[in-house]
């Protein structure tokens, strides 16, 4: 792309002729709409964008984006996206996955794609349910969740997607909410700007099979008390009256009332740039109702990507020894001549 005239894209240009097939009221609609808005100004032309997905309601996403797209198989999108990235260094590649797709059947791939720091923007639409297969509990469903396969309540401890992502050494980790359109758009743009594996968890409402699981995070009357919007360099303050904060007590975070329990200076200040995973991990483990749940960028820093290191190995050895010649390769072993 030339630096002078960055392409801008209209929502219409990014829309395909395919009929969108999500249920009315599904959170996926909002994510699709914000994605189109977010991509309008990221400076990447349409043909350089690719959406790769697995299987699930969320994974239908590529069909609705007028870019290149690959709707792969259940759980495997990170692998296909990795191959695409190896083949083609100048695409912007988005991976769209669900809580079942990304954390159950594809959990292993997620660990490894993040650990390798492949330059992909991975969006996990977390609705805490298997949507496409019509309502079975998922690895993120809260213990006790009643579902088609857990009528008497799920017995399992849920996975915390961001704790996993941080433990897997992801270089960009963020969380946002489907209906917070402004924050969602900004978060997508930040992910787009990141070089390396970016992981974004999006609280997404499944209207049909798990309606209202995120009500505490979306309902205007309560969300300010239940969500903590973090920003780099800013103290962790939240609440309707902006009078609550997070303070560290030893190794444990605690909710404090500013002005009563302590001053603003005692409140934790967010640092998204540190490579040390401690703070981000701590934030990822704050769960309601005891704590506000954190939205925003947990961590973001630059580290070489697998494909960059591989390209460098190729460039270095080629610079030193020249480009490989096939005839020489044939003769790498001892050669003898028969007359």
């Amino acid at each position, binding site marked *: 792309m030339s630096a002078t005239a960055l392409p801008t894209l209209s929502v219409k240009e990014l829309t*395909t*002729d*395919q*009929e969108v097939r999500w249920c009315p009221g599904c959170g996926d609609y909002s994510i699709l709409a914000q994605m189109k808005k977010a991509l309008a100004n990221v400076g990447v*032309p*349409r*043909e*350089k964008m*690719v*959406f*790769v997905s697995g*299987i699930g309601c969320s994974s239908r996403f*590529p*069909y609705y984006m*007028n*870019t*290149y*797209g*690959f*709707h*792969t*198989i259940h759980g*495997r999108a*990170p*692998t*296909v996206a*990795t*191959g*695409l*990235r*190896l*083949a*083609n260094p*100048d*695409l912007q590649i988005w991976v769209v996955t669900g809580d079942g797709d990304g954390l159950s059947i594809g959990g*292993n*791939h997620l*660990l*490894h794609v993040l650990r390798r720091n492949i330059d992909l923007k991975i969006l996990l639409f977390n609705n805490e349910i298997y949507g496409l297969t019509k309502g079975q509990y998922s690895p993120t469903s809260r213990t006790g969740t009643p579902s088609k396969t857990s009528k008497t309540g799920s017995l399992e401890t849920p996975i915390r997607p961001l704790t996993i992502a941080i433990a897997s050494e992801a270089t960009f980790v963020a969380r946002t909410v489907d209906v917070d359109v402004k924050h969602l758009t900004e978060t997508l743009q930040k992910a787009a700007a990141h070089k390396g594996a970016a992981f974004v968890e999006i609280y997404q409402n499944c209207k049909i099979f798990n309606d209202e699981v995120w009500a505490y995070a979306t309902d205007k009357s309560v969300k300010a008390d239940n969500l903590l919007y973090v920003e780099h360099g800013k103290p962790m303050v939240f609440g309707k009256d902006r009078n609550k904060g997070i303070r560290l007590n030893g190794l444990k975070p605690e909710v404090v009332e500013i002005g009563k329990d302590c001053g603003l200076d005692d409140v934790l200040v967010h640092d998204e740039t540190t490579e040390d995973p401690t703070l981000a991990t701590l934030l990822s483990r704050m769960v309601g109702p005891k704590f506000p749940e954190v939205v925003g960028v947990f961590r973001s820093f630059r580290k070489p990507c*697998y494909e960059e290191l*591989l390209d460098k*190995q*190729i460039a270095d*050895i*080629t610079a030193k*020894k020249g*480009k*490989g010649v*096939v*005839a020489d*390769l*044939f*003769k790498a*072993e*001892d*050669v*003898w*001549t*028969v*007359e």
Partner: protein
Amino acid sequence: MASLTAPAGAAPASSAAASRNGTHTVQEVESITIRFCGDSGDGMQLAGTRFTDTAAILGNDIATFPDFPAEIRAPAGTLAGVSGFQVHFSSNDIHTPGDVLDALVVMNPAALKTNLRDLKKGGILIVNTDAFAQNDLDKAKYKSNPLEDGSLAGYHVVRVAVSKLNKEAVRECGLSPREQDRCKNFFALGLVYWLYERPLEATIKWLKDKFGKKPDHKPVLDANTAALKAGYNYGETVELLPVQYKVAKAKIPPGQYRKITGNEAIAIGLVAASHAANKQLVYSGYPITPASSVLEDLSQPEMRRHGVKTLQAEDEIAAIGVALGASFGGAIGVTGTSGPGICLKSEAINLAVMTELPLVILDVQRGGPSTGLPTKTEQADLLQAMFGRNGESPVAILAPQSPVDCFDITYEAVKIATRFMCPVFVLSDGYIANGSEPWKIPDVAKLPKIEIIHATKPNADSANGAVHEHGEGEGGGAGKFLPYKRDEYLSRPWAIPGTPGLEHRIGGIEKQDVTGNINYEPANHEHMVHTRWKKIENIALTIPDLDVIGDGDADLLVIGWGGTYGSITTAVDRVRKSGKKVAQAHLRYLNPMPKNTEAVLKRFKKILVPELNSGQLCWLLRAKYLAPAEGYNKVQGRPFLVSEIETAIANML
């Protein structure tokens, strides 16, 4: 063939000549088969490879067969820990590593016990007598010492205190006692060099290349060289045997040669194909015997100079996903594994079938099912490759017939995958993967061209529409890109992400032909199922006909596929030399088969199908062509002996 009638036993055509300094004679023989075996820590693979290189450089035709245990280091001295390397070298054209051994080198009782049955009566048995203490015999479960109880009476036993003599030879070189002992494979190698009148130069040069560069390697270099020479000199001094055997140069077409294993040939074939196609090669695999060495070879620094990109994936599913993603991105995507890995890959193979992207899938077959026999060979994945996925899932299947053929087949696989936009299986096996033979180095300029044309602009003219009316979305229209608009072979365009104006979406859901839009309509599905089959069948229009060799007017056709080519060819040869009529054909293309296959089968009254499985090709030939095919089957994790196939042929005549 020669190795059966050759030395030591009945007198072959030989010229008795006085040896250089003794009374023994030198006999000229056509072929020799020899096996080095010992504990997996004894360095037998290395001794065997060095011997092979020397034979090749001296102008013999060669074929090798390494045979090692699944355990890397089973307890020393046990039966499970025996590792062997077999070399067949000849003044004639040979195709197999030999059935029966002319000479066997055993470094311990376990090796003797597990290998003696393959040594011919009267054959030479070189024994390291230092490893036959009671403790060693116990580990090999010998009740009495075979060196003393007369059980080796039928063989020409040569007793050598290898360990002791070796230690003496390398004492001065500055190695620890343990390291000293590890040179004994070179002592044994030296002995065998004497026996077959082979010069030591090539091996000494190899040692120098390997250990001569760093000063701290000098003791290793010195000691191994000393051990090698000591072994040779020992043979000469004590006149180990009354005869030395000599194998003349083979009449080999002129040219430059190197030794190559099947897996090496695959790695090189992929790189050569990527150059011919002017494409990036992306190879992803997960380590598994016997396929790992392809990933290892392709990740060498040398391969980076060819722009090869590799990724050791977290599992086989990821590996094929990476390869397929690379293909979507316009590279040559290749994944390699063995049978258990193919099981894991099947869902993604179907994604490639559905999205009609090029993909090369290497299956180096091993004994199954499940973990099976990891280090042993088998041909039992043919029907898995053919049918082992949900739905109707046609893929191309190719099978190399020898280590050298692995190059050509792999190259061809890339060509077919990119021309027909489809997954292509390469069904190799453990036997040819690890076996080696001389490879006549091809002229790069004469390799087949691989021409890839990517879509660069919209391909719809206004007449293009949906072939079936009830599909979702709209049809064509000038200025649109139709990702499933087909060419004369029914192949679809390959449009690489990044190309302006060709943005499109693909996936595993059934699609409407031409437009590629999601489509669940019954008639369209049937049309697409048939189209995918027909496309694969069209490959037959571009591949060579099936050749019949031997007696075209015979009653019996012997037809095989893959790595059994050498044994079948040698067996057919021998039967024909004995004056009987028999014809042979070998399938390198299993799906589709060459277009004259049916006509060939119809020409013969009887059809014999030797396979290292329970009859998979046989099953296909019967099902497809109603051919009166009869199987000859072996499922023991070992290749066919030539004699076994000879007998099977004789039983049919």
